[in-house]
């Protein structure tokens, strides 16, 4: 069955084939929406930004370099639109009351991790089919993401959703390679530290979670 690439479809769209653009929208709908949901924190906002992103892709179609890949380009547009959306909304990020308040010192005051380094092997991640309710886990993850600075959240989500190399991320975001590396290191450490603090604060110890996982 004919399965044209994103780039071929986008080129068709540039030549006036709107149906090709519909295929692109349908093809990226689920992944991009999940990415945006994580970035802006609510579905209505994510759907608004989703539409804005495709509109922008249409408006900037002439600037797209056909030698490049469409998907990273679209995600970069979406990340920028998400930033605008949050800025317009005047919401730096409403902190969830359960989110860590002190980003720098929460772990020092009792989560057991070192103040300077985050060791990922100390972090518990529930398996996808864990007894802990998936929706609840997703909400906790969202709460932690919401509490992170936008730049860290953005690079973390771009990396995980897109699976890009450092060079590609640097290229898409227009920032130096070294900055990409250090920022992603920091993003993973921040997320892990706050995730651990969230579990600790809610009294969910690793042992409890593992006990939940058992049949």
């Amino acid at each position, binding site marked *: 069955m004919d399965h044209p690439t994103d780039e071929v479809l986008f080129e068709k769209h540039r030549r006036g084939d709107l149906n090709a653009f519909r295929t692109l929208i349908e093809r990226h709908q689920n992944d991009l929406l999940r990415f945006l949901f994580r970035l802006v924190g609510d579905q209505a906002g994510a759907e608004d930004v989703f*539409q804005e992103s495709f*509109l922008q892709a*249409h408006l900037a179609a002439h600037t797209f370099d056909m030698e490049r890949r469409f998907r990273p380009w679209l995600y970069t547009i979406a990340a920028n639109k998400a930033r605008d959306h949050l800025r317009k909304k005047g919401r730096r990020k409403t902190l969830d009351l359960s989110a860590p308040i002190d*980003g*720098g010192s929460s772990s020092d005051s009792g989560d057991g991790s070192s103040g300077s380094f985050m060791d990922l092997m100390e*972090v518990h*991640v529930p398996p996808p089919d864990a007894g802990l309710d998936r929706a609840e886990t997703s909400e906790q993850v969202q709460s932690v993401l919401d509490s992170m600075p936008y*730049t860290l959240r953005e690079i973390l989500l771009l990396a995980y959703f897109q699976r*890009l190399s450092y060079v590609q991320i640097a290229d898409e975001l227009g920032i130096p390679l070294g900055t990409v590396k250090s920022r992603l290191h920091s993003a*993973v450490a921040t997320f892990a530290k706050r995730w651990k603090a969230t579990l600790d604060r809610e009294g969910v110890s690793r042992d409890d979670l593992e006990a939940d996982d058992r049949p």
Partner: protein
Amino acid sequence: MTHEPPQPADPLSPRDAAAVDAVLARRAGEASPHDDSPEQIRVDAILSLLGTTKVVARPELVDVTLARVQRAAQRPSLRLNIEDEPGLHPEDEDALDALVAAGFDPVRVNSTLRPRAAKMCDIGGMITAVPLRASPDLTERTYSKVASLAMARPAGEQFAPSGGRFRFTDLVTVAAMITIVGAVMWPVMQSVRVQQIKSACGANMATIAAAFTTYAGDYRGSLPVATASLGTGKWWDVGTSRSNSANLFQLPKERYIAIEDLACQGNPRAIKACCVKSNSDWGCIQEVSYSYQLMFGPARPIWSGEASVILTDKSPVVMRAVRGQVIKPLENSANHCGTGQWCLSTDGSAQWATTPQRGEDNIWLPAFLDEIIADARRRGASGVFVPAVTLRGNELPASARDTFVGP
């Protein structure tokens, strides 16, 4: 304007200087001799002048200050710097770099770092797992916005009549724009509407399947049949209660389904309400929205039996035959503007088909006509060659597996 150079301060007498030192030390809580000398009394009096002020703090000052501090505390951008964020364990840093280089496949990371890389993948899985379902019309809304924008004039070419009055040429321009936008938007709007109707019909298929399931449960797997034999009539004689549509009408008549669930939005004559108790069939063929497997054949299909198509969007072939027109076997249902049709099978599944041809079986035609067409195709040079065939209204399916729907 010039500034005068600062004048040197007048030096204190040694006794006054000692008194100032003593008073300041005493005010700072330090032990100092307190002899209440005239010099110290005078220094005390002079320093007391500095503390006299009529400024009184407003009571809300404390609240306002506190509120500002709290607001600042809640702003991550003010509260946090990337430099303040924790760093990764050096081995985690190496593992992350290796994972990124391996395209996020932990198996490709060397065995020393693999457990940490796998942990990072677990974290990624947790972040990317979002139990989210897009609104059903999100694609359409997005597409419509882009389509509308595609029709709009480029920015910077705003229409602005000079002198605040419309000229004839302006009116002509506006009329032309309306015509062009209308002409271009019409297919887009039509496409949106077709999609909506398609979705609605898909929902109808699910409801009809549920009704068939219940009916078959009550009638030992049988599907609705109103009359056992066709007699001398034609199965497309809707309204005579001996038509094939009367068989399907058993569903609403026996209250297994609402009549409106058998109405397609793409059929402008479809009825959504009628007295199903006193009627045995739709009033005329135009009111029927879905075509049902002809149930007068030698072997009728049963529900949940071997999967075969049992109900489809309305057959265009039958409509042509009723009007005495030449039929087009490969034509799609008019319910969805000829884009395709829903096909509900006896296993309860519904598929959207963009052609009525299912292998050698044409869903609009009985097997003997399918064979004639297949033979002609094999002999013909063109792959789309279809011989002229006709229907008379008394043809029947060859078997339960021969899909042949009507009206």
